[in-house]
């Protein structure tokens, strides 16, 4: 049963390790074929934030993001994984530049997909403008890479979620996989409550937070394409599946996406709560969706469909 980590067989480790709990580097090591990860601008290069010192804050050698190259079932992939526990996974100048550089390299090469493991609260407040600029540069780099034929796939399931600028970048990706603990949004729950009041959104009602922004709802809404159980194996399978599913990108894709979003707004715009959306979709006993196991939920989501092969 529970043997110490180091005595566990590698396959068991991939199957049983929680994506949500793992560090960024561990996620990449277990997502990719064993031993295939080659890190770019690794911690030994000491490319640290030039800003944190001003605030007397500790730095991290990789500035909270691991970028590199590896193999998934033998095929090459570029990878980036944010460390959600360092400054909430927030984008800073160096952090953002590493991701921009990776995407630009992918754009040049054209044939290698990019997997981005988001785990972020958005822009690092201490780096303000540099962080905002980084978000903009990354969004442009994602679109340019996609226009060059690169599949850019987001994997979301960490504790920081995918918020703020991260949510914007995720919206630019070719496809997304999300797990139950994962969350995707722009404004965070506390920000909404502060600005709109607790009657509008009670940030301490965690069931509400997850109904609104969490992985299951995002999948049912079509904001994410695949729902994965919270294990490294499930995310590995999801990454592989999405690479296979994503088609070519062009203006017609963008137009189809606009139509999809307009249709979504029309169908569900009057709904007050995610449960209302699920009911409108014809899901029986919609209020029990959060209690469904991963397998039960995936079966339900597949019946609903809404995998946007033809949009984004």
């Amino acid at each position, binding site marked *: *049963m*529970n*043997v*110490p*980590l*180091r005595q*566990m067989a590698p396959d068991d480790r991939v199957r*049983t390790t*929680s994506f*949500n*709990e793992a560090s960024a580097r561990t996620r990449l090591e277990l997502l990719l074929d064993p031993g295939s990860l080659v890190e770019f601008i690794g911690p030994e290069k000491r490319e640290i934030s030039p800003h944190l010192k001003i605030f007397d804050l500790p730095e991290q050698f990789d500035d909270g993001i691991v970028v590199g190259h590896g193999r998934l079932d033998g095929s090459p992939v570029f990878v980036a994984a944010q460390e959600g526990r360092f400054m909430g996974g927030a984008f800073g100048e160096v952090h953002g530049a590493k991701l921009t550089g990776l995407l630009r390299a992918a754009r040049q090469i054209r044939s290698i997909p990019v997997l981005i493991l988001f785990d972020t609260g958005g822009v690092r407040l201490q780096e303000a403008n540099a962080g905002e600029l980084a978000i903009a540069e990354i969004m442009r780099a994602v679109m340019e890479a996609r226009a060059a034929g690169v599949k850019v796939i987001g994997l979301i399931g960490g*504790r920081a979620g995918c918020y703020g600028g991260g949510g914007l970048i995720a919206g630019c990706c070719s496809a997304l996989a999300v797990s*139950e*603990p994962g969350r995707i949004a722009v404004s965070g729950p506390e920000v909404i409550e502060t600005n709109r009041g607790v009657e509008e959104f009670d940030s*301490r*009602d*965690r*069931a509400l937070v*997850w109904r609104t922004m*969490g992985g*299951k709802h995002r999948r049912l809404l079509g904001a994410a394409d695949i729902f994965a159980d919270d294990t490294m194996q499930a995310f590995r399978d999801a990454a592989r599946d999405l690479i296979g599913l994503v088609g070519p990108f062009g203006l017609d894709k963008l137009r189809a996406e606009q139509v999809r979003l307009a249709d979504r707004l029309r169908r569900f715009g009057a709904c007050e709560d995610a449960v209302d959306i699920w009911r409108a979709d014809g899901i029986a006993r919609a209020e029990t969706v*959060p*209690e469904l196991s991963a397998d039960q939920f995936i079966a339900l989501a597949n019946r609903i469909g809404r995998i946007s092969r033809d949009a984004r």
Partner: protein
Amino acid sequence: MLMSTHAEESTTTWQRHREARDVRLEAGARLARGKIVEARDATRLLEAVVRPGDRVCLEGDNQKQADLLSRALLAVDLAKVNDLHMVQSGVVLPEHLDLFDRGVAKKLDYAYSGPQSARIARMLFGGKIELGAVHTYLELFARYFIDLTPHVALIAAVSADREGNLFTGPNTEDTPTVVEATAFKDGVVIAQVNEIVDEVPRVDIPADRVHFIVKSDKPFFVEPLFTRDPAAITEGQILTAMLAIKGIYAPYGVRRLNHGIGFSTAAIELLLPTFGERLGLRGRIATHFALNPHPALIPAIESGWVQQIHSFGSEVGMDEYIRARSDVYFTGPDGSLRSNRAFCQTAGLYACDMFIGSTLQIDLQGNSSTVTASRIAGFGGAPNMGADARGRRHPSEPWLKAGQEADPDGSALLRRGRKLVVQIGETFGDKNVPLFVEKLDAIELAEKLNLELAPVMIYGDDVTHIVTEEGVANLLLCRDAGEREQAIRGVAGYTEVGRRRDRNAVERLRQRGVIRRPEDLGINPLDADRSMLAARSIKDLVRWSGGLYAPPSKFRNW
């Protein structure tokens, strides 16, 4: 005693209290229909029934709070009700202290003030509260029957029928004890209830002990105090848990025990089905508990470790799981938990062979305290659970073995056993404050407040073992105060207390087995990682329970 036929003559009557109670009841009855009083009349009811200077018990339990009655009491006309002597287990709600600010209450005897520890410290220092004493729960309950009997009890129940039978449900806690003392000594019992029904699911408090019922429009306040998120358990806590299981539970064969709430004990609970199983300990340790329904124990229960649990109170979210596991928990004919703090505290005192829990400070004799310069949390149940029960007479294996270690040379037939009292924790606590100190803050507090006794939670001469990430110290094997001090320094890690150890003395203690390091127990600290936990998240606990456990909102991430 004089008997007189003349009504005007003053006779010695021995029923004055009963007569006085009847006068109060009559005054209250004017506001009631039968026993039922509207919520909006609650303050007027209290003005009619409570007299200045009364001893009032306001529940005030560890978990549930009679919050409507607290607010009603706070709003009384001070000309009618003032200078009350509050006797209650818990000072929990802000209203409990507002009573003193306002002058409704003057004197206080209580047991636990965790949630109000900062404010009560300020008020005690500021002279706003006349303190009787801080007690343990069982000690306060005992005094309810001798010299702190309430004149009026303000209690919380789930439901009542029109006759006044009360259902107190899973959070029965202190209520039967409070009512017993009050009702049978001519006191008045007023209950707030969540609803009034035709028939209560079970009778926890019989109607003839209840005088007035007030229906609240909101259920009474209850907080989840005994839920620990497995996601927050650290490697250090896992290591201390492994040391406790292998270094104490196993060698003494501890089957009957109480866990103080905390992350280290939560880690122990979650290691039983994994680490404990690998050591072949199922059925040999941790089979009978005096324990609240900790969600962290679910995996061990499901894996067949636990035979029986008696509880002080309940825990939010556990109701359905408890109902489905009546083989393990105490339940009534209605199927829900029946808890009882007084009996569970007694069980912890006499029917358990070990208490294990955490604290904030330990000194060089092993005395421990949760008091700091600015916070007074009271005692709760720990001093009772964490004390050797000298009135105990029945033997058990762990008790006899501990007694023998404490007194190896004494005559076996006259040598009583010892209850295992274990302090477990990491050498540095929250905000990296050291666990081990040369002098307890409690002593400084006693000097400042002019107390007769420093508020010590567990006395050093009751402590049998201390477990930190550095190892296990067996104080039973220490022959004098000097050895005891070095044994404590020897597991105090890199705190100042630990760094000032006599290295040679500590090494000698290690050779005698008084101190055992992880390596001595065959444990590699690098193996203490979270993959060892049977459940690593609240969601895992829900899965283990087959969906029966329904965690409160603040623990959800789905």
